[in-house]
């Protein structure tokens, strides 16, 4: 038994040596610039709707989120978002457009299994955990904030 674990360890060491490492610098640079660019577009939309539609800061934020989600969903539907994600990695996953992508992509994928058990049931397979833990932690942070205030 002990020998077996040792063999496994030695093997995993060999695999580590032979397997290539990801290009960290290249990947980070792409993520930084694409993520930054998406955020810049968001900021531009925010400023524009705030000024043009005469909205308050918070209302403009909500409108921007809606627009960005729409854009993310549209680019996913057109088959462009996965190509951006291939290069940008976290740069296009972290912004809210990535969240839209994580909902629209399984919805598209499982359309053939019907609108109930396909599209609707599978829509949140990737986004579900983000929603559950995102909302839970926001409630917790809100409670702490309330108690400390």
């Amino acid at each position, binding site marked *: 038994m002990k020998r077996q674990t040792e063999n496994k360890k030695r093997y995993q060491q060999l695999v580590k040596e032979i397997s*290539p490492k990801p290009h960290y610098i290249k990947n980070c640079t792409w993520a930084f610039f694409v993520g930054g660019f998406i955020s810049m577009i968001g900021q531009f939309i925010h400023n524009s709707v705030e000024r043009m539609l005469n909205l308050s800061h918070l209302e403009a934020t909500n409108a921007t989120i809606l627009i960005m989600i729409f854009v993310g969903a549209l680019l996913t539907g057109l088959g462009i978002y996965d190509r951006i*994600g291939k290069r940008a990695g976290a740069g296009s996953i972290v912004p809210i457009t990535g969240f839209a*992508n994580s909902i629209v992509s*399984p919805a598209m*994928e*499982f359309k053939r299994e019907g609108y109930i058990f396909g599209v609707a049931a599978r829509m949140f397979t990737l986004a579900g955990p983000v929603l559950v833990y995102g909302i839970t932690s926001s409630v917790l942070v809100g409670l702490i904030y309330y108690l400390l205030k």
Partner: protein
Amino acid sequence: MAIKRIGTQTIKFVNPPLLISTASIVGPKEGEGPLGEYFDKVLSDDLFQEVSWEKAESKMTKEAISLATNKAQLKIPDIQYLLGGDLLNQLIATTYAARDLQIPFLGLYGACSTMAESLALGGILIDGGFADRVVAATSSHFSSAERQFRFPLELGNQRPLTAQWTVTGAGAVILSEKGKGPTITHVTTGKVLDYGIADASNMGAAMAPAAASTIVSHFSDTGFKPEDYDLIITGDLGIYGGEIAIELVRNRGLDIMKNYSDCGIEIFNGKKQDTHAGGSGCGCSAVVFCGYLYKKLVEKKYRKILLVSTGALFSPLSLQQGESIPSIAHAVTIECN
């Protein structure tokens, strides 16, 4: 007394079954790869005029079997057994093809090792005198495999450098007790091995120990030497898995470096086609064998090859439960005569 057994894991056929014809159908990406010209049919659309990828995969299997049967100048009722499988849950690609073809069917699951497994069992049926003509067929489809094992296609994520690209393709081989063609002479059945790799995007590393173990057993059982083979070709270890397998075999005192290759490396041009570590899937060793290797054997460019199809026997469920990836490899010796 099992007179056809040699060593611990190997069978030596007394009346080696002949591979009288093969057929291969591949998707557009495989058609653009370095082996494109060797395939019988390259699809222009990977949906193959169907409404789902699963149906497309099933249709590929069915067409490959029909095509191989036609090439051997046989009719479907002449085939006595269909042995085959694919990667999908409950083998739906192969079973729906079998529903239409009405050939007595034995479904096999060996993940990507299924091509060698079905060839081996087909050979056993024929040499055992249980059948005159058998078809062995396997398939995989990039899009149907992705959705079952990984992520939706349109999800914007990055594939690691060790990840492989599931081959869209189906291959079928007609085995017969008489006729013309290369023969299967030996079969080495693999054991399930697990060295604790749990990374589904590094399946080459998960499968390399199984491949190495089967290759080493094959040589010790048969008494062959690596030089006896023109080519020792694994199923889908990819670039890095292949390197690891060569290293593991070398540790056991055999050098296969000179005549080693991998179907997953041969089928794509990794740099141009962005497939990272190479091709994978049941269809990988199936179409490389049925398309490329079979033609080279018929042309006598290769006289004797060892096809070692490799399979990672995991499911997304087992990985989520914290299990590592067990693997298997089966080897078949194919000689031209």
